[in-house]
Structures are given as structure tokens and as C-alpha cells.
């Protein structure tokens, strides 16, 4: 119930204009780390569009997802500069350590692994961003150590 009220108030901020579907969905995504199903009905009703249209936007845009995202995002840059300097090997290592494929979330819901294209730090390629912290000149060894440490840090809290 609380969720429904909260969803309504997020959507209400944007009024009836269907132009703002994407903005409303962005806000919902960042609040819940995914778009909960009831949001589709609320937006459809409020902005007077078909539910299928809202659904199609969520499935089209990479920033939106029906699946809940992890608590922490790990972003591996797959931009051109990073690709040239071995980004795919770094990505494979992370996939192996976390046992997920890019685009997925770990079973414990802790991490989501994303491929991104250029984070503007090409001079440090290849780049991995764990949460908010940038790791330049990333190597297999380095990301493994970082992820191991990150995991144990969380446990000790």
C-alpha cells in the first residue's frame, strides 16, 4: 500500500503530459532499483496512455529494468579506448568472480554488473567503477583483489 502511494506521488509530480513518462520512470527506477509492475498501471492511468506503451519504454531503454538491480553497481567500461586496452578480459574476470554475466545481478542481490561505453576517463583505460570508486589500468588480478576486499568489508560491517 505504501509503495502504491509513493509511486503515485512520484508520478503525480509530472502531471498528465505523457512526454514525462521517461522522466517518471527514471525516478521510479532510482527509487526502487527497478520498475515495479504497479508503476505501469499508475503511469498509464495518470498520463492516459496504454499500459503497453509504458511497458515498451521500460523494455527499450537500457537504464530501466523490471528486474531489481543490485545494491552496488559495477560498471565496466567497454568504450573503444578501454576495448583496445583489454576491457573484455577484465570483464570476464569480474563475471567469473561474481558468477554473473554482464547485465545481471548476483544471486545475493549485492552487485549488478553493467557494461558502459566510455566514462570519460580514457586516459586510465581500462576502467572499472565499483560503486563510486574508479579503478584505472584495471587488470584481472586487481579487480579480483578489489572484489574480494569489497565483499569482506561488507561482511564485517
Amino acid at each position, binding site marked *: 500500500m505504501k509503495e502504491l502511494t509513493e509511486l503515485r506521488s512520484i508520478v503525480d509530480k509530472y502531471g498528465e503530459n505523457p512526454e514525462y513518462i521517461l522522466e517518471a520512470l527514471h525516478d521510479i527506477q532510482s527509487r526502487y532499483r527497478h520498475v515495479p509492475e504497479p508503476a505501469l498501471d499508475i503511469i498509464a492511468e495518470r498520463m492516459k496512455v496504454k499500459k503497453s506503451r509504458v511497458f515498451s519504454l521500460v523494455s527499450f531503454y537500457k537504464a530501466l529494468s523490471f528486474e531489481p538491480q543490485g545494491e552496488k553497481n559495477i560498471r565496466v567500461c567497454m568504450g573503444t579506448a578501454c576495448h583496445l586496452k583489454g576491457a573484455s578480459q577484465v570483464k570476464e574476470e569480474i563475471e567469473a568472480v561474481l558468477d554473473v554475466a554482464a547485465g545481471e545481478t548476483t544471486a545475493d542481490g549485492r552487485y549488478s554488473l553493467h557494461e558502459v*561505453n566510455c566514462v570519460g*576517463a*580514457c586516459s586510465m583505460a581500462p576502467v572499472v567503477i565499483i560503486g563510486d570508486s574508479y579503478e584505472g589500468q584495471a587488470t584481472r588480478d586487481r579487480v579480483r583483489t578489489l572484489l574480494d576486499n569489497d565483499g569482506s568489508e561488507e561482511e564485517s560491517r
Partner: protein
Amino acid sequence: MTRLHLKDFWRYSKQQMEKRNEQRVLVCGGPGCLARGSQAVYEALLDASGRVGGTGTVVEHAAHMVGCHGLCDQGPLVIIEPQGTFYTHVNPEMAPRIYHETLRGGRVVEDFLYSSGTGRRIARYADIPFYQRQQKIALRNVGAVDPEDINDYVALGGYRAAAKALEDLSPEDVIGWVKDSQLRGRGGAGFPTGRKWEVCAQAPGENRYVIANGDEGDPGAFMDRTIMEGDPHSLLEGMIIGAYAVGASEGFIYVREEYPLAVERLKGAIGQAESLGLLGDDILGIPGFCFNLSVRRGGGAFVCGEATALINSLEGRLGEPRGSYVVPAVRGYNQQPTALNNVETFCVVPEIINKGPAWFAAIGSEASRGTKTFSLVGRAVHIGLIEVPMGMSLREIIYDVGGGIEDGRTFKAVQTGGPSGGCLSAEYLDLPVDFDALEEAGSMMGSGGLIVMDETTCMVDVARYFLAFLRDESCGQCVPCREGLFQLTAIFDRIVSGEGQESDLAAVEELAVAMQEGSLCGLGQSASNPVLSTLRHFRGEYTAHIREKCCPAGVCRALTAYVIDVEKCRACGRCLEVCPAQCIAVSQGVYTIDREACTRCGACSAACPFAAISREGCVQ
């Protein structure tokens, strides 16, 4: 703040500009320097100066986090104005010396200066070769202005162009000036901006709109981001002038969702401009000139950078292109005439108004006037953001500005134009970089990524990389693009895994042409460029993959092998420990790798303390 009228504006502008010569400490807050910890450097500088809450110290007033200064590989950067002292690789521990010796003592700390290849220390950034060949128009304020303070922008002469246009020029005059400057759009296609605005101004419609395209989806490009984060007001000013010229009263900035800082800075800038009377109703007191501007976030789809897809996305629809027969200048947002331009295009306009169209048209080459920003990345010594006059040769850009190829390796290719651009070989190093020359050579300007490659880059892998990128980003509306990219990637996957056939290249070329001719929008029409340009300039590399099952650059995993150099190997056993596949055998002190079992992960090579393990491209 009160909303200014024209007369007040000129007075306020003069006041701010007079304040400009004071000491300033600029800490680079561009994405590269931030990633290297420049925020901590900024805090350390404040601490070193004995940050006293409330009252503030010299540094507290003078220190600013600014946008990208360009020389990212030397970051974090700290610049002290007005001298232009340039400190590189700054860490928080260096802050006390910067404060005591430079800011208080007026002395330069030699150890912190930029060191050229020959070890010579250079004190002022203007004397560093990387900066000497550049000319900044679009980036004129980035790295100098505090992006969160409109007063600082005004102190650098900001909004004078908008005021001048509103005071002295009619909308037709503005369009005439932009036409005379011969400015061409910086978003990729190079369409003449003045002409676009004229079409938009004259097209029948009830409302008109201006839209800035800040979607910047090219992997490996960060020019527009740098402007939006580092100098948001110059974009606003360009859009105000554009709105005045075409008669728009509403505008949007469509920003890539991955740039939250740009969104925040732009929203902040819009708020400040509104409160000063530079946006909103009756701008600068001129009755009837109203312009409201808002920021919208994209959804993370490359194709939304395409003008008509962007407009669909803005309208709350799927970001699918409408087809190239729809001209937004005539029928754009809400079916109304819309001037949609790239961020950099808008940013150049105020300088054209300030300095005149002839000034701008005198820079650059015959058919491409002015300057262009590039993100210079890959294997160059200096990596970062640059702006050079059009027509400069690739050689000058890569060697004089970029400092050549890193680690003394040799140049192999440069990729321009983003995922649908092309790769040019060493023969083209003297090619002048402008819209037409690049296109004739089989590449394109695109939005300005310049990716330098050396002999460790495999051109087949590069082409495959861009194909896979575009395949994932194709919106899927039209068959040539959707299926063509799917099939091309499949063929390339075969080639890089050693299963390519002689007939593949003909199939690739046929598909490429079909996509060029039959696709709905620019994405599909140009998607085969990386393939065609690498085939044209590096055909031998393709045949090596197909016939000899060999990747000369040693990149394609299935065609390469890790080999242990027995001369260098000291039998320390590090590789045995790290190999996840346990494919390294030892017999009588000699280490060998089992090629069948090896997954080519590279762990052994990375771990070897004697650099005895390397990846070889042509081993049978």
C-alpha cells in the same frame, strides 16, 4: 537576484569582468581527473590554507573545481592563474607545498611541473606542446570557469553575445551571421547550421523549438560531456541566441542518462540564468522574447542520438528514428519546426556573435571552417580532450599535440567518427582533418572521437567490436540494419575464431552495400563503414585471419597462443600458481604451455616477473 534589463546587464558584465585578474586556483574536475582523485586534492588545498569555517581564507575564495583541462594523462591537474602555472599528477600530500610556496610565497615548485619527453620542466601550460597547437573556441571557458557560478561565466565575457544579438541584431541578422560564418554542425553530419536555422525560421508552424543534442553515445567520446559539465552557460547562451534566431519560445537539452553531473550542472545553470532574466519571459527586458529551457534525461539508447529518434524519445515514445525523409527543421518536436543541434554547435555560436562571422570563417579549411574538439584516446602519449583548427593533419594532431605513440611503438591506424566511422592507415597521416577529406578517405568526422592504434591493435577485432556495438544498439525497426548487423557480426565472429572462409569477404561486402542503401536511418546506413574502411586499408590482415588462421597483432584469442621464452624463464613457478586452467607443464625445469587446454586468459603473462611469457599472433 533581480531580473536584469539590457542596460543593467552591460553594467553587471563590466563589473564582473573587472574582477577577473585576481589569483585563482583551478583544480581540474573533469571526468579523468575526478577518477584520479582530484576532489581530495581540492579539499587538501582548502585544508592546507587553514580552512576557517564561515570567514574563509584566501584559497577558499580563489579555489574552484573546474571542467576538464584536456591533458588527462597528467592528472590530477592544478592550475594557478593569472600566471598559468601548471602542476601535474597532484595528490593531496602536495597541497601544503602548493599553498605555502606558490600561493603564499609566489614561487613555482619545480618538482610538480609538467615534464616533457626529454625531461625538461615547463612551468606554464601555454608553453606545453600539447596546448600550443590548439585553438579553443567551443572549449574557450572549460577548465577556466567555475561551472556552478554564473558570475564567473559573465566575468569571462559570458552572455555578452546574447545581449548583443538581442540589442543590435534582428533574428534574420543572426541567421545571416551564422550562415556567413559557414559553421557546420558538430554532431556528425556537418550540415550548415545557418541554413538549418533559416529553414526552421521560415517553415510554417504555430510554435518553434530548439533542442540541444547532448546524447553523445559514441564509445570513446566525451567532448559534449565536458562542455555540459565544465561550461554549461555557454550552451545556454548558444541556445538563447538560436531561439531568438528561429523564433522559438521553448527548448530542451537532451542529455545522456549516464551523465548525471551534466544534468545537475545544466539545471543549476538554468536556474541562475532565469533569476538573472536571461531565460524565461521578456528576456533582458525585451518585451515578447520568451524562452524557457529544460533538461531531459535519455534512457540509455545509442540510437536516441539520431535527431528524429531523439525527438520521439522527448515526446515520451520509443526512441526509434522516423526515417531520413523527415526533416526536424520543418516537422520536428510536436510536428513543429525544430532547430536541433549538437551541444558543441550551440557553444560556438556566441563566439561568432562576439567576434563576427568573418573571424570564424578565417579559421580552418575551405569547406570546414572553425575548430573541432576531439577526444584523443587510445595509444597516443597524451590522452585527453583537444580543440584544433579544422584542416590540421592527422600527423600534427597525433604527433605534435598527442606527443606520438606511447612506449615508442609504431602508428598503425586512427579511427575517427565513432562506431560508424572508419579506420585510416599510415598513408593517410597527412590528410587534413575536415568533414569532406575524411569522408573521401572512407571515414568521417562524426562527433569527434580520435582513436589512435598501434601494432598491438587488430583491425579485424576493431571492426568486429564496432559491429557488435551497433548490433546491440540497432533499434530493430528496419530489416537491413537489424539483420545485416546480426549476420555481419556472425561472420566476423567466425573470422576471429579461425573459421573464416574465402567467400566471407564477398558476403561481407554485399551485406555492407545492402545496409547502406536500404536502412532507414543513419545508424544502419553508416554501420558498415568500419568494415569497409578496414577492408580497404587492411585487407591483408583479413586474409591472414582467413587463410593462415593467424592474427598478426596477436589479439584474436583463438588464433593466438601464449609462449614461454626459455631464455628468459627462470623457472620460478609463479605462472603455475596463477594459471586457472592448470595448463602449464614442467619437465626437467623447462616450462611449456599446453595450447589445447590454455584459455588465453593472460594470467601467467601478467604474473611473470621476468616478462618471459608473451602472446604470439602467428603460431601454427
